[in-house]
């Protein structure tokens, strides 16, 4: 097979440049295979993050020809003619080469008030398949953070990271809100502190999701509806006041020990 040139960004937080690596193409390779061959030969210090190499762990996200992709799921044969450009995810600070500091996402995860289920009855909870399916879709998330990377609210506006959880965590909140066992109420938190209102539904996140989770349609829009209803609808507001006996506000939940 013919040769291919990989144009890879190399550098660290102080700056860097593109370097070209030209090597023979093998049949059936994905971008990560080629990166590994470069590591094993020309550049053993080329930094890239990866684990399962089967599209299940979400470690190897990068931008390939400008688009967020999992390197292990991007076949070389689908690349257009010419050099293949690989750059780190733009939204996160660079550590080195293709590796970025994704700690923003782990900090967001720490803010999520945990599931608050009722005590478990003897022999386990009873839940029905149709009731668990909505949240199961969101639990397919492999945390590649490409939805976070592509979301222009934080991709283009660093300041917004202070008060915006991002699509990955909107599906996490949606998962908990729709969880059959949950008694926690995170709606004020989502509206006031997690910046759900900043999302203007451009669906970029849905387009890049390697798990094909319908982030916008199935999580963000229903979440917006719930939060808005809860905030402006007096009947819903009254209902919530009454239901507080079972639903606990996020603030209260935060001080309760997790079960």
């Amino acid at each position, binding site marked *: 097979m013919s040769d291919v040139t990989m144009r890879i960004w190399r550098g*660290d937080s102080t700056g860097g440049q593109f370097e070209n690596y030209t090597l023979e193409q*093998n*049949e*059936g*390779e*994905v971008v*990560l*295979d080629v990166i590994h061959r470069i*590591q*094993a*030969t020309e*550049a*053993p*210090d*080329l*930094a890239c*993050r*990866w*684990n*399962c*190499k*089967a*599209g*299940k*762990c*979400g*470690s190897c996200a990068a931008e390939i020809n400008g688009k967020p992709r999992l390197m292990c*799921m991007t*076949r070389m*044969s689908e690349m257009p003619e010419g050099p293949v450009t690989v750059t780190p995810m733009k939204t996160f600070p660079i*550590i*080195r*080469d293709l*590796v970025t*500091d994704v700690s923003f996402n*782990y900090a967001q*995860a*720490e803010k*999520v008030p*945990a*599931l608050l*289920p009722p005590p*478990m009855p003897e*022999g*386990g*909870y*009873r*839940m*029905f*398949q149709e009731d*668990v399916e909505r*949240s*199961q879709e969101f*639990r*397919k*998330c*492999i945390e590649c953070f490409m939805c976070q990377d592509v979301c222009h609210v934080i991709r283009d506006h660093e300041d917004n990271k202070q008060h915006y959880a991002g699509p990955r965590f909107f599906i996490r909140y949606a998962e*908990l809100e729709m*969880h059959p*066992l949950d008694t926690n109420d995170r709606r004020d938190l989502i509206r006031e502190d997690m910046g759900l209102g900043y999302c203007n539904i451009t669906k970029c996140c849905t387009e890049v999701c390697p798990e094909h989770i319908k982030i916008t349609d199935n999580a963000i829009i229903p979440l917006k509806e719930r939060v808005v209803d809860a905030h402006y609808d007096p009947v819903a507001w009254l209902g919530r006041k009454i239901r507080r006996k079972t639903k606990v506000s996020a603030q209260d939940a935060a001080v309760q020990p997790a079960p």
Partner: protein
Amino acid sequence: MSTNTQTEHHEYDVLIIGAGGAGLRAAIEAKQRGLKVGIITKSLLGKAHTVMAEGGMAAAMGNVYEEDNWMVHFRDTMRGGKYLNNYRMAELHAKESPDRVWELEQWGALFDRTKDGKILQRDFGGHRYARLAHVGDRTGLELIRTLQQKVVSMGTDVFMECKVLRLLHDQDGKIAGAVAYWRASGEFVTFSAKAVVLATGGVGKSWKFTSNSWEGTGDGHAMAMWAGAELIDMECIQFHPTGMVWPLSVRGILVTEGVRGDGGVLRNSEGERFMFNYVADMFRSETAESEEEGDRWYEDHAAGRRPPELLPRDEVARAINTEVKAGRGSPHGGVYLDIASRRPAEFIRRRLPSMYHQFMELAGVDITREAMEIGPTCHYIMGGVKVDADTAATKVPGLFAAGEVAGGMHGANRLGGNSLSDLIVFGRRAGMGAADYIEGLQGSATLNQGEVDAAIAEALAPFNRENGENPYDIQRDLQEMMQANVGIIRTGSEVEAAIETLENFTERVQNIALKGGRQYNPGWNLATDLPSMLTVSKCTARGARDRKESRGGHTREDFPGTDEQLSKVNIGHTLVGNDWTASIKTEQIPLLPIPAELKALLEEGK
């Protein structure tokens, strides 16, 4: 406490190394006991190899078959392990796994449901009843995410992308901490801890064809042994006969037996359907004699006998191995699994949808048009650190181990679904064991600074060499050597050759020279993984040499049967000295005697 002021230092009650299912479950338990817990992981949180598990976690909840109970599960596990198991681990596992699964639901896990709203359980090989709690084919992800979210909600310190180099002792020889480095910065960090739990997973990365990720380098196995613990059953490794060997993008991915069940056949480079040459006498009466007869069987099981492609896993694997060694393999060291020429494309897509899509998406391989290149693939190690079943304690005070790094639970062969449940049952027990141990501790510990200094000096040595080897070359050669000599089918002479060659590898690793700096340098990372890979490879080879029989995941071509004397022992390994290059002592250790009431359960099933 460490007096070294240059190195970042942290103090914990319990330090957990590894953030897969076992490590996270251990952390939760220790946290619930009010202890200060730190978790160290080589990767980011939530990326551990646990996510790869698809099938489910075995627990005798009886949701689908009321007849199921712990006693049946115990018997299945022991039988699957060819009775080499630590019986007490198998017993605890069978008894406790249902509670561990239910507990996950309280933390947010959402399993697939039965019609009446209970956790659905699926059938799996070796389990008498449908027993695996699951979420589609992503049960491992569900397990790790649930535990990860629980750990985070409890406010646990997690050191991500931090690689532990050595365990540290105190002045009395108890485990007192660890020395590590941050991958991002390359800076060193020391930890003192009253107890350390190893939960580092497996060793598969030492083989050329493996389903394991880069992390499976046996760090925990090796560090435990270097610190004075004992490894057992290291020869017992589960290989799958049909893993993809090419293209690279799918290497290691397992091809379900269903492909053969639906008409797929094995061919060598000459196009011959070679399995007909490998039908052992004991299978002759039930196996087709000709291709025509075998083909009739697919249509109507009464019209012919089973084709030889459907012989037991080890028979198929041995045949593939022999063909490759005879020079009739495919270009990349496997053989061909062909369903494309035998079934219409539409049939293949309908019967094997996930196989079809996986290969199409990952490799552009259309299994309806071309044959697959497959070969035996390293999947899981049953052997590991010898532990006490109830407490997960090793023989070194203060050191505990759980999950794939611990040995004994699965004996000579693991049943599918028993590994996820192993993680949560013994992860919890390791957390409890560590907490109980700490309660009984007296006095304060002083880290052995000499050990810290030696580990750091050794880690930095490759940067100081002008000329030396590329660690990737060593890794590739090691993988090829282990695949060829200590693979799925072993013989005495090849295993002896491997033991000798591994000494050369030890020298080569001590002559690595590195390019670049310390900041997120994968070459350096590999250089620090290689000593672990060599230590576990040596133990596997030595165990394979001494177990002169075939049992479970260990097959000796020159000793195809089982041996009565060897059925009563584990093969154990300890280090003679304290340096990773020191020699290894290998000896037989008698199995724990099984109490009469449990023995009776085993007899019932025979």
